[in-house]
């Protein structure tokens, strides 16, 4: 960090810094879609976020957290990249990008899936729920509150995926014991090892449900 960054620091978020610091043409191209979506206003209903000159882009309409998003994406765009880069909802995390870690877990029509292993185009008309659609800082979802209360994380990178999985688990067939919860949460890896607290958080919500 350079000392002369003191002045703008207050207004600068980490994400904005990373999105604007790139000076090369390549970096500008890489973030093009994200900034275009930002310009279309994050999460605004009916916004069409068209990437600048995405060759072969295809229209798709998703309902994300209750809002209709009419988008235009490269066919290769996974649901994960669409949510993060096109719609700029970055609460959903990219871990392995191969369906092995669960950080990208979102709900499609109420069921949890790995958003990295499905294409945005496969979900035309589908209802997508991300961590941003679960609760707000002022009105947390009970599972979010329970993760806070039980310290169900350390670095936090896997947390949104853990919580999305845990919320879906509440509606799935699952035995009462901790072992059943662990089995159904095995698709969400936590390298910090917060597992005991995650299980405690989930069990508290299940008991109170």
């Amino acid at each position, binding site marked *: 960090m350079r000392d002369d960054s003191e002045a703008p620091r207050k207004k600068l978020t980490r994400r904005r810094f990373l999105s604007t610091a790139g000076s090369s043409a390549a970096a500008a191209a890489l973030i093009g879609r994200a900034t275009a979506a930002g310009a279309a206003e994050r999460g605004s209903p009916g916004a069409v976020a068209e990437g600048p000159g995405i060759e072969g882009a295809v229209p798709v309409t998703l309902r994300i957290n209750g809002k209709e998003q009419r988008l235009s994406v490269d*066919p290769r765009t996974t649901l994960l990249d669409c949510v993060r880069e096109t719609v700029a909802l970055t609460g959903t995390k990219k871990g392995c990008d191969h*369906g092995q870690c669960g950080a990208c877990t979102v709900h499609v029509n109420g069921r949890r899936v*790995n958003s990295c292993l*499905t*294409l945005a*185009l*496969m979900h035309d008309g589908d209802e997508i729920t991300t961590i941003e659609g679960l609760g707000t800082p002022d009105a947390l979802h009970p599972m979010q509150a329970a993760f806070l209360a039980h310290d169900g994380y350390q670095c936090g990178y896997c947390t949104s995926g853990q919580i999305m999985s845990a919320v*879906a688990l509440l509606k799935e067939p699952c035995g009462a014991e901790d072992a059943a919860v662990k089995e*159904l949460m095995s*698709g969400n890896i936590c390298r910090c090892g917060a597992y005991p607290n995650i299980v405690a958080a989930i069990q508290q919500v299940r008991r109170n449900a």
Partner: protein
Amino acid sequence: MHTFEFVRPKDSAAAVGLAAQTKTAQQGAQVRFVAGGTTLLDLMKLNVETPSRLLDINRLPLSTVEAAPDGGLKIGATVRNSDLAHHPRVQQDYAVLSQAILAGASAQLRNMATTAGNLLQRTRCAYFRDTAMPCNKREPGTGCPAIAGSNRTLAILGTSESCIATNPSDMNVAMVALEAVVHVQGAKGPRAIPVGDFHVVPGNTPQRETVLEPGDLITLVTLPPPVAGSKQVYLKLRDRASYEFALASAAVVITVSGGKVTRARVALGGVGTKPWRSPEAEAALVGQAADAASFRKAAEAALRGARPQSENAYKIELSKRCLAHALQTAATV
């Protein structure tokens, strides 16, 4: 990932017509059906699969589970693994299938993966998944580095000089033990393929994994009527307790009457280049006492043809114990 055209065929006939334009339905196919995407997109990101056209079959009417007229079950190609595992008929009459599916992958992946996709699940062999390495399955004729390399998790049954890759599916093992039938809509019309004939051993053509031809669309899988009084167990052994592929697994469907085994269907997973039916074990069981000695003999018979590699000889004993334990559990259910 290579670019591709994304198409949503309006019906099965249109899907078959478009898919028939590929030269092969096996490794290297230029047209691929996509349903769950859990195998295909993974391999496309690795550039192991490079189709130029994807046919999305998720909106085709292939997602129902229905009773078959003969008392069996008709399972649509795009029925999600989680829905199948929790279906009341499957839990009641085909418990081994439910157990096998729930022993595989994670809850999220089971919500995505489909019946037909699971049948076509590709090997986890690290050399197959890495385009920097030679692999006869991915690039015929380049060699098999697994044979002298890292092969701890690879196959001991059905291998060849060309390939020792393991079929990774749990569901397939149960399907084989249940004698499921795969129904295909093809360019020349429909046909039904017993699941035991659906997958092929690698031989000199490991790039060929099934009997599917260009245009072939799996539409459903049927299960025969349940065998009255049969006991079913799927047992899976792996490096960790959950979310891991099998080192050895066994699906058994046996009927015991008067202390003797009267009928047996046995399949092994994690050890074969295809889901491994063992007629040897079945023959060794029928007419014998349902006890530990018989089960061990059956396990010995099942693994008699095993050919270990440098790192996986342990699988022979592991697989024997797995099968014997599964049989013992089934007999005492």
